[in-house]
């Protein structure tokens, strides 16, 4: 079976991932040690449940903050970035 892949940008770094994977999975494969910091304590956090329950994987995706990265399917050229603290309003 040949696996279709796409290239996404995780904190600016190009990463090739399976077309059916989530942005959170892409961040993990890219070796991102954490994906957000807690807006309450600044602690580093990373995806925990991968199924839309825990909201630990909130990231900035294509410029939109607080997306649940585990629920967003990757697309070619997608920009996946860490979310530091509370999302910016706007």
């Amino acid at each position, binding site marked *: *079976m040949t*696996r279709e892949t796409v290239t996404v940008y995780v904190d600016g770094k190009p990463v090739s*991932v*399976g077309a*059916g*994977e*989530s942005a959170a*999975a892409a961040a*993990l*494969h890219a070796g991102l*040690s*954490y*994906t957000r910091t*807690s807006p*309450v*304590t600044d*602690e*580093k*956090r*990373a*995806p*925990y*449940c*991968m*199924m*839309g*329950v*825990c*909201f*630990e994987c*909130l990231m900035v995706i294509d410029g*939109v903050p*607080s*997306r*649940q990265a*585990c*629920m*967003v*399917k990757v697309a070619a050229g997608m920009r996946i970035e860490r979310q530091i603290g509370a999302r910016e309003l706007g």
Partner: protein
Amino acid sequence: MSTVCDLLVIGAGPAGMAAASTAARLGVSTLLVDEQAALGGQIYRNVESHSNDADGVSAADWQRGAALVREFRASGARHRAGTQVWQLDPAQEGACKIYVTDGTQADVIRARRVLLATGAMERPVPIPGWTLPGVMTVGAAQILYKTGKHVPQAGTWIAGSGPLLWLFAAQALEAGGKIEGILDTAPRSNFAHALRHSMAALRGRAYLERGLALQARVRRAGVPVIKDVAAIEAKGEDRLTTLRFRVGGRWRDVLASTLLLHHGVVPNVHATRSLRAQHRWDGPQRCFVPVVDAWGMTSAEAYAVAGDGAGIVGAEASALRGRLAALESARRLGVIDEQRRDTEAAPIRGDLARHMPVRAFLDQLFAPRASLLAPADEVLVCRCESITAGRIRDAVRLGCAGPNQMKAFTRCGMGPCQARMCGLAAAEIIAHERGVGMEEVGVFNVRPPLKPLSLQELAALPE
């Protein structure tokens, strides 16, 4: 643009696919919405991509999942993928309004009846360090495996209890993954308690044989299995580096880069809670479940629930319960009469009777260790708002009686996950501290939106 249907099924796992297929076959205009990109739910995630069919451990599961997908595709029911529900309105003048979003635009679906098949989630059990990067659930690791064939690497430990833990360990090893060890937190006494249900369990022999086969496979691979582990702690500065655990009264430290936790699964009751449907405490499964009749009808008019969302029964029984709920939904929509419903239901109930007796045995065998449900004061319980068990106990001592007051006292449960992660754990702590039952403590009220929405998404809403 709003959508209209007779039956809206929410969730495309076994219960939802079976329900939608059954209803559509009877002539009910049926729409199935699901938040994932593909059919299958969690258990049959990615089943259509065929990337998992070579997996010797779960080939039979995949065949069952693929059969449900084929049946659904041929049924005439519509499917809307990538759709999250954020509000369920009570039935009004014979119709329910369900608000959804595809991530960029909100929409409203009008349905005469709704069948919730939102399944289960892993029981969140707070341990010291469970918020550290490097710690995730077994279910999360299994999703990475199902969607991308990624398997655990060196430095991975698994801890907890439950059938999924053994299934995933066997799958991961079969696929070339590496597991340093398994910390089994089920108390030894579970086995004796489970034996009381052994006669009934023998009628579900296939489940038992499979469980034993999975455990044997893990042992054959040479993975150390440490039994009766009483406590686990994840340690590290910014990431997990060390796993501490206590067994036989002694603490041990091991190096770890990944810790996968699992403490069984519980119904995902977020949607039924938001409807204010009646729920009850299920003692053996240690979770709240919606109160349903023999057809899965809830106390909320026009709403049914089927599958693990109505109490944990596993994938095969979930599909059967989906079919029963669909039959009664079709009857209430006036598409079939009572006689037809009962005729169609009889063989389904027969099948269901084969799957149910083993449950009591499994519930006891994998029951979570009581001490794990009473985390130490310094342990974070509410991950979103960083509220510790100690702060929850302090609030109880100040007179806080239940989870909803707890919000005002501490902000516990008020973060983006809306208490999905801390709700059950916080209620257990409050019940223990007050010395009362879980029924009395209750859980957090759930209010829409069930998922955070942007104003931009909302602006697309018709009306």
